[in-house]
């Protein structure tokens, strides 16, 4: 997943030693993936913004404790998932992963209104992005979580199992169900 340049592990080590630029590089490299994981799981832009800050604050704070026994992305997405679960617990019963709203529709409408794009391209892009959000919102939370961890975190089944503290077989079946359901749902919207 890394761009050309130092590995994630090298960068976090350099940041732990006081190199702020290393953190900036790390953040730029993983910003979008973490954002998508959080926002698509919680379905709320405001909650995702809050979580995004918490996750990266935690990375910055705990950089000195990071040990390269696991990949940096595994550590990063473990933090992201834990923060997300903390948020859900803290806001219970008002909020749950499913009830967070999946407000993506309005956001997409606003964000894809790019005046530079042609009218057809803009509509098509908006439809695809909306379809994806709706499809993800209809997945059971565990399946969505496992799928997003694997796709956005670029993690193996073993790594997803370790992060979610589930067995290898459980994660594998969650991923299989998630993919089957997504295929159906995205087919419907296509």
């Amino acid at each position: 997943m890394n761009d050309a340049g130092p590995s994630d592990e090298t960068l976090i080590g350099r940041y732990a030693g006081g190199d702020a630029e290393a953190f900036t590089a790390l953040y730029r490299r993983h910003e979008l993936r973490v954002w998508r994981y959080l926002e698509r799981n919680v379905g709320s832009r405001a909650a995702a913004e809050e979580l995004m800050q918490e996750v990266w604050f935690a990375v910055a704070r705990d950089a000195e404790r990071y040990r390269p026994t696991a990949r940096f992305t595994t550590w990063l997405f473990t933090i992201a998932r834990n923060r997300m679960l903390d948020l859900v617990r803290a806001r219970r019963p008002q909020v749950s992963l499913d009830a967070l709203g999946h407000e993506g529709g309005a956001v997409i409408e606003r964000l894809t209104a790019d005046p530079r794009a042609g009218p057809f391209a803009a509509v098509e892009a908006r439809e695809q992005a909306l379809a994806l959000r709706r499809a993800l919102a209809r997945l059971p939370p565990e399946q969505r979580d496992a799928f997003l961890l694997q796709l956005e975190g670029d993690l193996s089944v073993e790594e997803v199992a370790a992060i979610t503290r589930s067995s290898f077989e459980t994660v594998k079946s969650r991923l299989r169900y998630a993919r089957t359901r997504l295929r159906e749902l995205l087919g419907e919207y296509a």
Partner: protein
Amino acid sequence: MSALPPRREPPDDADEQYRRASEHDPSRPSEATRRAVLSHAARLAAERARRRAHRPWLSFVGVTSGWRPALIGTVTAAVLAGVVIAPQFLVRRAPDESQLVPAPGAAAPAPAPAQAVASVAAQRAPEARTAPAASSESARPAPPPAILERPRLSATANRPAVRESVPPEAAPAAPAATGAPASSASDAMTTLQLEERAGANAARVMAPAAAKARSRAALSPPSPARAAPDALLQAAQDGNVTALATLLERGSEVDARDAEGRTALMQAILHRQAQAVAILLDHGADPNAADAHGTTPLEAAVAGDQREIIAALRRYGAR
């Protein structure tokens, strides 16, 4: 979590559909979030760089790398050996006055590392226990005063290093585990007894050095490293945010503790100083540093129903 490279699954058309649709999703975190994250990270980096500049030995011994556990283990073992085994060894020899006075003209042996002293003590202690009656000058050589003093010095000299290198969550348990206070007291007693019983030669040798040290201590102002923790704790209690920020920027230890094991963060919470809490957390205060009674900052804030502080603590990972 395995360090092995992840096993790749065969590509799936659902994954492809997901990726294609993702490309059209323009959603991004806001610029404000990005700025907040990067500026926070830069502040912490500057703080770390400054801390390293103040304590270059941190990088010299590779404390931030994977050496830390080994270093902690070695230092802790040496300190434990020094404070537990050596005093017993010394106390047994204390009554024998004739052996305490160094031979006239005998030079003090070269200083050895604490581990070496501890291992010598460990080797000699069983001998003394198993064959006390057979003791002779060759079996029980008279340790000169310099050696008798050394375990106490090595123990106190090593203690701060252990505190720095132990992770915050492990720090409160360290003094209890090493039993350091009790051993220090017994060391002090031993030293006093030895000084009383030592001959005039030893007293003459020691007196000028001790007097010089006392006068140096009396003349020199308290060092910032010693004075800062109290000042920081006081500033946290008072909610004096200017003083807090100044102290922290001057390198005051953010997680320094008072006699009750309370950090400045805990003091700020107990005195309902939300701004002080925010500043301390922003400067890297450990949000989970429990006091000597095991009360965590979050528990204290919840007990006081301090919602703003609870939210701040959670943001920084308090459990």
